[in-house]
Structure formats: structure tokens, C-alpha cells
């Protein structure tokens, strides 16, 4: 890659050679060409445009252009009151709305003096772990379809539907829940939820394994991802990566452990990092493996939380919600581990009004995507698809 950097302005050509590596031949005359990928390209998972400078099949530079889905969430947030922000947060990362709500509520609750009931904490953790699995299923399914494998996609969406049914049963909505509220949740679990949730866990464990076998042991899939889009750990940290992206580079960092928010410190789960047996640490396959392993950890978390959750008859999950949410003056940065990494909210309150003075969302995929230029340097055009897929962007959150 460095060699290519030097040769940026002279002509280069690469030929594939074993193990997905390429060798670079210099000074072969060819022409630089601008190639636009997107905004309407299936592999960009939404509306993202990549302007690629290519030399033959090699990408010299890929510059992402975003903002096609920009709604200025932050301006909206300044205009509505705190509970009114939650539905907007839902629509940022629409594949993991529960987790996004959770992050926002954590941030606001730091400024409020509310005691969250213990059962509510469990409800929150269970629904957001379910949502994490659903989100990873979309990530893995669409990644497979990007690389030409159709079957895993169908499997993923079949299983995801079960989760969405469960969450719909709980919250009333299929994807945009508005369920986790500041100080509580909207409704208690319906009767019989625990049994159905456990049933799903039992059903899904072998399915997750099957999915693993379908992809991770598939030679074509491995060839397309192993050794592609390498990112060393220190550079990943410098780029502000978080979540599965950072763990894919071998950094053991999970906010559920580091920040120990909610009831996570009481639960027994491990932080998933690739061990280098199947993948080169820091490549696309590592990031995929982290997501696959995390689904199993989420199942463990759900099982434990269902077991530990205190049962209360006639429990009112809205009891701790303040009548009028007016946080004290101050500023706070609250964050939570989302399926895509660290979702943080910087909130400023003046102590007088019921709407935030400033509400900045630190979007995880916005930050993860910012390394695209460096990741794409010297890669082949088809590998670009593999790299974007492994970043797992949701444009609703990138553009906000």
C-alpha cells in the first residue's frame, strides 16, 4: 500500500496473486479514470456516493460524499422537548432503534435525578440485546448478498422477523419503537414474554451456528474478505473507530464493560475479538466474525437477564418518568454500545427550558466511514464492495 502511495501519480497495475494479495507493477501506461459508485448502488446500503479515482482495476482514492439523507436531527432536537427527541433518535439508526433510544436516555438521565427501577433496567437490556441481534442479522445478511451469497440473506431475514415480532408485541411498533423513554419504558412486557423469548433463544442458537458455517466456512466468502481492508489497531483508534470495527482490529473494547452502564456489570459475557485462527486481524473477515460471535453473546445476555429479572405484579414502568423533564443546567456526554459502535450524545441544558440547548449525536457509522479513504487505497474495485459492507453503515445515522 505504501508503494502505491508513492506511485500515486505514475501509472500502476496490479495482478492478483494467491491469498487475495496483489503485486504492483509500476510505470505501465494506463489512464486514471473517475468512477462514481452510488448514490443508488445496492452495495452502498442506502444513499452514499463514492467518487473513485481508478487506475485500471485499482482504486487510488475513494472519496465518500454523504448528506443525501440529511434531516438535521440536531436542529429538530433543539426545537422539541426532551421526550419529543426520542422518536427522532429512533429514525437515526433505524435498524437498532432500541439501542439508540437507550443511549439518548442514558445521556439525559445523567442530568436528571431519577432512580430507574431495577425491572426497567432489565427490560431495557433485553430489548436492546434483541435489537442488537436483529441489527447484526441485517449486517451479515446484506454483507453476504453484497458478495454474491443469496441464501444466508434469506436465513437472516427469516430469523430477524421473529425478533421483530417479539419487539412489536412488546412495544407496538415493528422497527421504530419509541419504547425506551427517559426514566422508564413505555410498557411492561406482555404476559408470556419470558417463555416466548426463551423459546426464541433456544431456536436461534443452532441457527446462528448454521449461519456461521454457511459463511465463515465458505471458501468464496473467505477469499473475498480475508486480508481485504486491513486496519491496524492504533490507526483504528486514531480514526475513532468503535464497536465491532475496533474489536475486529483486535482491541478489546466494549462500552458495556468499560462504562459499565445499566445492569451490564452484573452479567457474565465476554468481549468478542477475533483470535486470528480464521482471519487476519483487522480485515473484513474479522469484523464479520466479531458480529457473528456477538450474536451468541447477546443470546447469553438475554438468557441471564430473563432469569435475573425481578417479577412484580402490576408493575408500572412509567412510574419513575418525571412529569416535566427539565434537566438541571449543565452539559453531559452520554454514550452506549450500539451494534455499530459508540453512539454518544453531547447534551447542553440551560436548566430553564424543556428542550436541549444543544444536542449533538456522535454517530458511530459516521466516524467509522471516515476511514474509507484510507481503507480503499490500492484495493481492487470489487473489494471496495467488500469493504463498505464490512463497515456496516446505516445512512440514516451517518447523515442524521
Amino acid at each position: 500500500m505504501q508503494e502505491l502511495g508513492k506511485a500515486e501519480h505514475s501509472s500502476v497495475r496490479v495482478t492478483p496473486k494467491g491469498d487475495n494479495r496483489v503485486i504492483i507493477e509500476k510505470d505501465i501506461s494506463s489512464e486514471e479514470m473517475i468512477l462514481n459508485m452510488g448514490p443508488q448502488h445496492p452495495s452502498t446500503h442506502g444513499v452514499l456516493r463514492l467518487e473513485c479515482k481508478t487506475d485500471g482495476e485499482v482504486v487510488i482514492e475513494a472519496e465518500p460524499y454523504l448528506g443525501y439523507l440529511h434531516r438535521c436531527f440536531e436542529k429538530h432536537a433543539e426545537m422539541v422537548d426532551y421526550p419529543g427527541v426520542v422518536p427522532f433518535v429512533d429514525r437515526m439508526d433505524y435498524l437498532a432503534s432500541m439501542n439508540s433510544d437507550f443511549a439518548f436516555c442514558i445521556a439525559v438521565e445523567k442530568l436528571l435525578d431519577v432512580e430507574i427501577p431495577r425491572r426497567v433496567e432489565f427490560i431495557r437490556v433485553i430489548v436492546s440485546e434483541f435489537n442488537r441481534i436483529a441489527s447484526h442479522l441485517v449486517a451479515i445478511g446484506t454483507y453476504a448478498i453484497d458478495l454474491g451469497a443469496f441464501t444466508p440473506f434469506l436465513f437472516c431475514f427469516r430469523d430477524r422477523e421473529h425478533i421483530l415480532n417479539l419487539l412489536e408485541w412488546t412495544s407496538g411498533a415493528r422497527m421504530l419503537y419509541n419504547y425506551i423513554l427517559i426514566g422508564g419504558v413505555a410498557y411492561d412486557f406482555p404476559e408470556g414474554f419470558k417463555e416466548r423469548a426463551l423459546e426464541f433463544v433456544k431456536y436461534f442458537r443452532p441457527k446462528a451456528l448454521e449461519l456461521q458455517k454457511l459463511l465463515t466456512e465458505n471458501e468464496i466468502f473467505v477469499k473475498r474478505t480475508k486480508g481485504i481492508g486491513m486496519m491496524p489497531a492504533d490507526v483504528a483508534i486514531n480514526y475513532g473507530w468503535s464497536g465491532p470495527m475496533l474489536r475486529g482490529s483486535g482491541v478489546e473494547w466494549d462500552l458495556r464493560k468499560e462504562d459499565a452502564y445499566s445492569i451490564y456489570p452484573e452479567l457474565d459475557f465476554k468481549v468478542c475479538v477475533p483470535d486470528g485462527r480464521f482471519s487476519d486481524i483487522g480485515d473484513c473477515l474479522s469484523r464479520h466474525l466479531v458480529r457473528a460471535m456477538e450474536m451468541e453473546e447477546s443470546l447469553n445476555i438475554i438468557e441471564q437477564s430473563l432469569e435475573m429479572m425481578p417479577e412484580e405484579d402490576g408493575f408500572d414502568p412509567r412510574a419513575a418518568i418525571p412529569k416535566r423533564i427539565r434537566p438541571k443546567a449543565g452539559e453531559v456526554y452520554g454514550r452506549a454500545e450500539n451494534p455499530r459502535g459508540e453512539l454518544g450524545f453531547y447534551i447542553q441544558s440551560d436548566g430553564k427550558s424543556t428542550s436541549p440547548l444543544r444536542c449533538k449525536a456522535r454517530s458511530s457509522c459516521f466516524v467509522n466511514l471516515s476511514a474509507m479513504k484510507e481503507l480503499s487505497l490500492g484495493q481492487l474495485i470489487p473489494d471496495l464492495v467488500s469493504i463498505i459492507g464490512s463497515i456496516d453503515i446505516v445512512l440514516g445515522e451517518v447523515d442524521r
Partner: protein
Amino acid sequence: MGDTQENIPQSGEVIAAKAVWQVINEKFGDAVSELDENPFMPFFEVLKREQWRDIALFMRDNPKLRFTYMACLSGVDYPEERKLGIVCNLESLGELGHRIAVKVKCDREGGIIPSVAKVWKTADWHEREAYDMYGMEFSGHPDLRRILCPEDWEGYPLRKDYQVQETYHGIKVPE
């Protein structure tokens, strides 16, 4: 802010931030303000903003500080002070584990803040976003363009006195 948060006992985060601030204060003296012991987000302000990049580099590379990770950079508007500013949430990821926030302010019209995109690469897009939304310049930024709004958008949407343009390329802009 001080009066609302006086009675809260100091958390470990604030104590760690205090130690960090002392190291920075020793080196840069009055270029940095006193530490504000906000229990959730201890922060200090860079008073001499031309030194911000040196401070950033010092914070990243000093073995006692090692702020390797920039979690967030938010632009902020202070209309009463007639200033714009940024708030950076920094963290020593996986090494020392402490956290601190840094504020830098500049004038509302034509204000310039030194860019730290070369210190933390993640600041590149964050600064572009702050420029897009608030309009402060970042000197030394490799590629300062709008990022979320279109190139030819007028005004800076997140400023408190922002007036939305009536039409954009002949299309009416909803209020």
C-alpha cells in the same frame, strides 16, 4: 453551573481529570483555564486558541496523558458571548482510561480554530461537520468543505439566529 453541582461527591472520573489537567497546566500555564469539575464531563478551556494544536499533540503523546481516542467533537454556538466553539471529548482508550473534555472558542464572524485533523484523524470529518453547521474555519485542515449540506447551501443551520433560505435551485424550502 457551579451552584447546582456543589453537593455531589467527587467521582473517580473528576479526580483523574484533575491529575490530567495539572500535567497540562504545568506545561502550558495560562494558555488553559481552570478545570471545571462537572461530575459527568470535567472540562477545561483553551484560552490561547493558537496553541490548541500543540496542546492536542501534547495530550496525545505525553506518556502521562496518552489521549489516543477522540470520542466526539461538537460545534457549539454561544450567542450571548458572540462566540462559536468546539467541545472535544477525549479519552485514553485501553491505556490509562481517563477522560476529559476540552473547549475552544473563537469569534462568531470569521473565527478561526487550529485544526487537529492531523493529531486525531477522526477530527477530519467532525471538523468538517462543525464548519458545515456553524461556519467557523479550521486552519490547517486538509479538506475543509461542507459535508452534510450541499456545497452551495446558504448559511449555517445550527446557529441560533439561522434563517432558512426561501428557495434552493428554484425549489421551495419547507420551514
